């Protein structure tokens, strides 16, 4: 299975611990046929774009193996088919659950389970840094996501939203086939329009699902497109209030966090990793710390401390530039 589709073990791990949920909530986890890799591209849609070649290859390869034939007959009561392959992968992935983190033990009552730094970070998470607004984290919902779609300005850094959305609409009008839609979603920058490509709701432009925070320490790079290499970069992004664009979530505001507070936040985030990956977690912490010490490309203290305002440049720049 893994050979046929070219997946690797750590890739699978990323599936579960990074965006483990399908970007489209209309797809149930059992079907597992719309998955996003770390670059934000849908695997199944890749298959379809390639003219349904890969699914035929998969069914041929797996269906040709006597053991798999037997296993599929036992599990599903019918011959190997593409949908059931997806179900089988889904069933396997559901066994890969890693939620035993120091933080969870802390929540359960072991006050020594996380460091004082991380504890301060948890207070910030719920307070000044306002992360909990979207990364909801409580005993009923420990994943650290509200399962909603927010535009936090990540894709706005690379794309020009307005013209992309106009182009998307034009393309739909000219060729409304699903093939065209998938082509657009994958091969052009329009995938950066996020949830909008599914719902066509204006409020969803540039909106991506709130990513869950479990094991976030060991799953760089960050954000839906992997554009932020370390958690310090993530903190810088939020500290300055994201990136201004016409669809920015109003909850994105400059946070005025000091360096100390950022370190505390990062310490907290690293406490969310399952204890079975403690070694990897340590390694990542050291590696990211070193990288962050060299470069903090997304830091903007003027914005973070409200000396410069979001939309200031945009509103001033437009005059006379013509559109």
């Amino acid at each position, binding site marked *: 299975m893994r050979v046929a589709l070219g997946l690797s073990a750590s890739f699978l791990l990323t599936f579960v611990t990074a965006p483990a949920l399908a970007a489209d909530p209309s797809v149930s986890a059992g079907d597992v046929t719309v998955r996003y890799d770390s670059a934000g591209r849908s695997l199944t849609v890749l298959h379809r774009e390639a003219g349904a070649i890969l699914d035929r290859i998969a069914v041929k390869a797996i269906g040709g193996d006597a053991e798999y034939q037997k296993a599929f007959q036992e599990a599903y009561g*019918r011959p190997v088919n593409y*949908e059931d392959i997806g179900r089988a992968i889904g069933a396997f992935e559901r066994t890969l659950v890693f939620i035993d983190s120091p933080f969870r033990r802390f929540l359960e009552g072991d006050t020594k389970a996380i460091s004082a730094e991380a504890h301060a970070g948890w207070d910030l998470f719920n307070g000044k840094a306002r992360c909990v607004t979207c990364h909801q984290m409580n005993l009923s919902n420990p994943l650290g996501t509200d399962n909603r779609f927010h535009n936090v300005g990540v894709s706005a850094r690379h794309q020009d939203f307005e013209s992309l959305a106009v182009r998307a609409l034009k393309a739909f009008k000219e060729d409304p086939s*699903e093939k065209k839609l998938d082509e657009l979603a994958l091969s052009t920058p329009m995938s950066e329009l996020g949830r909008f490509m599914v719902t066509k709701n204006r409020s969803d432009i540039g909106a991506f699902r709130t990513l869950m925070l479990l094991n976030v320490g060991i799953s760089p790079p960050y954000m839906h497109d992997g554009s932020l290499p370390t958690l310090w970069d993530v903190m810088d992004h939020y500290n300055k209030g994201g990136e201004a664009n016409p669809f920015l979530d*109003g909850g994105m505001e400059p946070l005025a966090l000091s360096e100390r507070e950022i370190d505390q936040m990062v310490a907290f985030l690293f406490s969310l990793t399952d204890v079975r990956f403690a070694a990897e977690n340590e390694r990542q912490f050291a590696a990211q710390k070193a990288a962050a010490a060299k470069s903090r490309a997304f830091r903007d203290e003027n914005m973070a401390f409200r000396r410069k*305002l979001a939309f200031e440049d945009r*509103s001033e720049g437009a005059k006379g530039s013509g*559109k």
Partner: protein
Amino acid sequence: MSSRHKSVETRYLEERQRVFGSLKNLDRRSFLKVSAAALAAAAANGLVPPASFMPVSVAHGAPEATDAPAFRFAYISDSHLYAKDLNDRFARALMRAVDDVNNLAPQPDFVFYGGDLAQLGQSHELDLGAQILKNLKAPLKIMVGEHDWYLDMGAKWRSLFGEPTYSWDHKGVHFVVLMSVVEKDFWTARGLTPMQRMQTVAGLDNGVQSSFMVGPEQRAWLEKDLAKLPNNAPLIVFSHSPLYKLYKNWNFWTDDADEVQAILKRFDRVVVIHGHTHQLLTNRIGNIHFHGLLSTAWPWPYAPQGMPELTIQMSRPDPFNPNDGCGDGEVHVHADGLVDKIYNLWNRNPITVAKGYTESGGKKCVPPKPNRPGY
């Protein structure tokens, strides 16, 4: 491939294929007709966002389509600015609105500012507002609110923006801007300083201030200004206070509303667009169709009594998103002077209150209902 075992994704894609496939089979002209009708249907259902790009939810079966508007203008209102280093959020929100309007394609004919540019009428606040609004590409028409006026009784306002009461004509429509936040003197007897007077007026629920009114001088001016217009003339009146009596405690109120409405009574139809209420508000009194403006700064709750029947509330804003319930918008003006009022709520889908809605007394083109109304 076994079609008996369809995954959810397959079914979803098949459905989408069906929807788009039905469009594929039309020739170009029919396609345009269908999509225009669908667009109109979407508009009728309050689903159409502003004109720069229009993601269309393809509606199956189009209810009565509205005719294309004659022209459009944009609006921004109620920014309540403090100095940038005192309160960054209000300034940022106004800049965001300016950016929104500047990104409209095509550009609107003009941008209307609905009043309360400053929070306490201070010179530096009004200067900041004027400076931010200068970045608008389209021409600006501006109206005064009570927050702009009662520190110095309009001295700074006049120096920046001229007389608060004026009118002009544009593409066959007569536009009037009133200064409808006149208040009877409550400050002299109490010996209030100018700032105390301003802070009294700035409190929406402050009962010491007087009710808003237009006043006899302006009513006389209005009669004269409208005298030459025939009864079927398209007429749009801008006012900061609503020009009707909604809720006195919050000055969602114009004391001489009856007199003003009497002046407007002879016209076939009049549109009044007002600020001050910071919410989606719709009313119809006889021939007058009333529309409220959104604020960029914060949303007001709906009044506990006096709410017009026609108003379908915007959903109660989420306090955890400081921009929720706020925004800017557009007004699409039709040839007869009636309007489609578009509320461009930040982080929400826009809501359109189409002319068919107020025209039919709320029976057609009904905007979507809130899932969290005020209570």
